[in-house]
């Protein structure tokens, strides 16, 4: 009789295939950690998020970073071209400086002609005092990162028809242009989840009605409807009210895509056992949707929401460009571009079109980031 052999050594399930610490970390990682790992592999998305963070920081500190205030007029320098920053003057190291302008009015076409005056060297000052402002509305200060030389000028991106520095205005405009997308998406996120949640959870007639409404809203060409709605904002409204009005209008048309996603996910998830269990234990619909069902696909929602931010930014830019959106003194990139509507002016002073550049950069970055997020949203694939 041979006895059954039992090894004395403690059992190790991984004895055949040893798990490396990295693998172990991967297996133990939570869903959000996995998403983060996957997002990190998407180089373009990582680069884009860095760009976006930088741009948002620029917007956050725009008063400090810009040499002038939003409304500072330099009436002597109307439509001045961008100045180049030099470091060497005739082979000699001077430090960062700009040349002053020599100004002449061309009597033939009445064009203001500026040329750099190489005898007039204006050294830039850093961490200096210039226009006063209220930092974040909290305390008064007049410290700027960079200012022109005393008595000199610094127009990195040129000036507009009132002699206002375009560089400062673009930085200030970033604040509005960038927040309108976020505020709008937050609104449409709430709308989408609530309405899509109702449609998906209850199904039946409610679902049918909401589906038809979504179809109808989607069959409107977006921009003309935006235009019509923003034209109905009363002219007596203060600019800040108009800002919220425009955001609301942008969000009112945007929630449909999210609502659809929420609905179709809920329709399948509500059949799951854990949902039935929650129902049997007496949880209310609001709790089931919010606590049990939504977290399951929150990552997808965030990814698709981030993809519609650029649309909102563009919407605001287009509306303000047409003069139907935000109104001065509120300044966004679209409001700045409104000045570029007249092609004859643009042909003479092309730097008025510069706000196009940050718009395109931000849109591209949001698109890439959204793409990366969408890929990462499903880390188990």
């Amino acid at each position: 009789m041979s006895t059954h052999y039992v090894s004395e050594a403690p059992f190790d399930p991984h004895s055949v295939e040893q798990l490396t610490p990295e693998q172990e970390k991967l297996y133990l990682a939570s869903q959000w950690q996995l998403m983060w790992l996957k997002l990190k592999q998407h180089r373009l998305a990582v680069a884009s998020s860095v760009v976006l963070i930088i741009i948002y920081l620029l917007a956050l500190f725009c008063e400090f970073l810009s040499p002038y205030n939003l409304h500072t007029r330099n009436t002597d320098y109307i439509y001045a071209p961008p100045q180049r920053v030099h470091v060497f003057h005739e082979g000699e190291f001077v430090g960062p400086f700009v040349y002053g302008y020599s100004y002449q009015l061309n009597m033939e076409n009445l064009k203001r002609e500026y040329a750099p005056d190489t005898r007039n060297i204006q050294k830039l000052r850093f961490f200096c005092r210039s226009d006063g402002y209220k930092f974040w509305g909290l305390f008064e200060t007049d410290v700027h990162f960079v200012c022109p030389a005393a008595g000199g000028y610094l127009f990195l991106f040129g000036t507009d028809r009132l002699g206002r520095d375009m560089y400062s205005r673009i930085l200030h405009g970033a604040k509005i242009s960038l927040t309108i997308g976020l505020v709008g998406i937050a609104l449409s996120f709430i709308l989408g989840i609530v309405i899509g949640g109702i449609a998906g959870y209850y199904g039946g007639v409610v679902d049918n009605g909401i589906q038809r409404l979504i179809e109808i809203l989607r069959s409107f060409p977006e921009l003309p409807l935006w235009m019509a709605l923003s034209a109905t904002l009363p002219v007596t409204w203060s600019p800040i009210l108009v800002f919220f009005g425009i955001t609301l209008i942008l969000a009112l048309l945007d929630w449909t895509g999210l609502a659809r996603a929420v609905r179709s996910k809920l329709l399948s998830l509500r059949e799951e056992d854990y949902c039935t269990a929650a129902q049997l234990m007496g949880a209310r619909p609001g709790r089931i949707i919010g606590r049990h069902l939504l977290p399951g696909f929150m990552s997808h929602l965030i990814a698709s929401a981030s993809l519609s931010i650029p649309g909102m930014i563009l919407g605001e830019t287009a509306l303000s460009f047409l003069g139907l959106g935000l109104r001065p003194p509120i300044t966004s990139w679209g409001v700045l571009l409104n000045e570029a509507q007249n092609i004859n002016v643009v042909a003479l002073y092309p730097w008025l079109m510069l706000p196009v550049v940050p718009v395109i950069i931000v849109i591209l970055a949001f698109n890439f980031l959204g793409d990366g997020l969408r890929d990462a949203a499903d880390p188990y694939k």
Partner: protein
Amino acid sequence: MIGYILKRLFFMIPTLFVISILVFVIIQLPPGDYLETYIAELQSQGESVDPDRIRFLRAEYGLDKPIYEQYFVWASGMLVGDYGYSFEYGLPVNEVIGDRLFLTIIISVVTIIFTWAIAFPIGIYSATHQYSWGDYGLSFIGFIGLATPNFLLALVMLYLANVYFGTSIGGLMDPEYIDQPWGIDKLISVLEHLWIPVVVIGTSGTAGMIRRLRANLLDELQKQYVVTARAKGMQEKKLVRKYPLRIAMNFFIADIGSLLPSVISGAEITAIVLSLPTTGPMMLNALQSQDMYLAGSFLMFLAMLTVIGVMLSDILLAMLDPRIRLQGGATK
């Protein structure tokens, strides 16, 4: 098939009805009506306002009636081709619009054809040559095209044409043909000018379509039937053309539903920048002066155009794909 088309047509009616209500609400949204603005304007100029005349005007335009009756008058008028009255121009909307709607339709249709013609070969190339340099390059250009809003593209093109060629590329026909009746010469002149707005409007749509076509085709190319056909020694070109492409075609047609609203939106704003004689600039004008009946009719037209376009694409899709025809609905 005929049954499907009829069903589709029937479903269009409630959609258009709801759209018309929405548009009417938008028309009514601004506080006061046009006459009140008109009276205020006259008074600010120090002119006296004859209350009898105002009452007459009010009755003439039906502004004294309750709101649902005003809607009824407006909507039923639309059915027989009476689109209301433009206060600013002092003319019926029909006469104000003239060619504009027609030109908008032309531009939209040509843009869609352009989008298809460009996106189709490039999409196939990108999918069959995945991760090649060509694919990367085209994807990159596509991304730029997607991110550049078309009104900015229009602005940049206007600027470049102005600086390098010294000409204005605005407008849709040579000046001598404006207000002339349609003829061959006028048509040729329009076609000569058409390509700029078409390129401007079509770019982002084309870029989007290339990306979607590429993704769809890639999905198909990884399926087993493709592997089977390849294993049996089928030629690569014939293989792609024969099977995956046919399935990708479906979505291609279906995509017009999402393409059309964006093309029409793009056409509007591009027309404003390039000052084309289409609905865009006039709608902007009407909105700015709160000539709401005119603006509302434009909005209604554009929405109708979209609804009809989507319906056409659905019917095409049903002709192409028996699954949709038999199940009675597009599955997305």
